[in-house]
């Protein structure tokens, strides 16, 4: 199986095939509904983002709290299509990869292809299994959103399938 290092570059994305299984290692940012709304509102108002999304991969997840010394709680993907209205704007600002579950809208799909970006899916409902691939977890923005805050995760051999490129 193909091992991919994050952050991704466009050359690696070009070499991927739709339907191919990959293992991702490196940095992911997490963001779901509320964080997307804030990021896009900030961009619309010409404000600086609290984190750079250039060349980054966003994982759509809202993890459960970490128990004791654990790195993270259950952290499977959430439904990507809710992020569709925000995706083209983020791609225009340099986002290069997304991980979630389920189909994307026509507009989001076209935008992913146009920017030479990639959309991966991973296994919905496999929150504990996926949590074992997360090695570091740190909140980097919007901490008031708690589970919906933006986190930086360091993952190792995180399983995904190439869905749109």
């Amino acid at each position, binding site marked *: 199986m193909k091992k991919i290092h994050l952050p991704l570059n466009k050359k690696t994305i070009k070499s991927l095939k739709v339907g191919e299984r990959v293992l991702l290692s490196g940095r992911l940012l997490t963001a779901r509904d509320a964080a997307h709304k804030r990021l896009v509102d900030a961009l619309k108002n010409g404000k600086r983002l609290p984190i750079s999304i250039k060349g980054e991969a966003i994982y759509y997840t809202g993890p*459960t709290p970490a128990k004791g010394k654990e790195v993270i709680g259950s952290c499977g993907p959430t439904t990507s299509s809710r992020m569709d209205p925000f995706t083209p704007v983020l791609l225009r600002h340099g986002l290069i990869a997304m991980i979630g579950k389920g189909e994307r809208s026509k507009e989001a799909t076209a935008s992913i292809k146009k920017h030479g970006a990639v959309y991966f899916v991973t296994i919905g*409902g496999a929150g*504990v299994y996926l949590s074992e691939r997360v090695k570091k977890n740190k909140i980097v923005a919007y901490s008031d*959103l708690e589970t919906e805050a933006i986190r930086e995760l360091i993952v190792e051999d995180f399983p995904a399938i190439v869905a749109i490129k």
Partner: protein
Amino acid sequence: MRTVKTDLIAKIIKKLCLKANIELRKDVLSALKQARKRESASLPRYILGVIIDNAGLAKKRQMPICQDTGMVVVYLKIGQEVRIKGNIRKAVESGAAQAYKQGFFRKSIVGDPIKRKNTGTNLPAVIHADIVPGNKLDVRVVVKGFGCENASRTKMFRPFDSTDLIEDFIVGAIRDAGSKACPPLYIGIGIGGTLDKAVGLSKEAVLRPVGRCSRLPYIARLERSILKKVNGLKIGAMGMGGKTTSLGVSILTYPTHIAGLPVAVNISCHATRDARKVI
């Protein structure tokens, strides 16, 4: 009259919230294992394997199966010979709050649907109470994630619309849900009653063990027909194709009005979760 103290109800609710989130229902797990056995395509077989492994890991590590630990829905069937001492809603909510704190579950509830600020406790819960004969108290906790809840739908048919039309509506809902709702799905359907009754039935339908069919022969036939059509969509586990888009179809019916035929489809993911205790 038998007296039940609300302290006991709180304790039970806490236990059931923990169990529902951590231990996958035996019938659902066994249906997933059967689906994996049947599957010959490698991608859906791999996905089903991970889902089954995840259920084992959740139990072993006492972690929630899915990060979407849901909105808590409580069904109370209160025997008419039972007297409850204390405030029932407070008891239910204190039990649920304790479970979500101690279990390290996600708090996914916003206090207002428009303003959308997280309550931080996963409260309030949705409570359905019913008065039944006898002196027992039947407590059931359902936790449902919103990936699949968002794909559910309802429609008011005309009284003499054919069952073919109803089947098309249901199959269409599953097609539109695609892989967003985390297939393989358990599909609950409510037919009859009023709008709210049909939705309620569709919710209760997935409490029936997967694989058990309706006692009404014409409804059991309808269940089989829908299951066949849905699996014919070839969406498969997490949209990766293969034989199993749905683990089962369960239909509940109720008398209805001469002018109507309400139908509700409750789409439930492969982590269909609930726990029950009768005292």
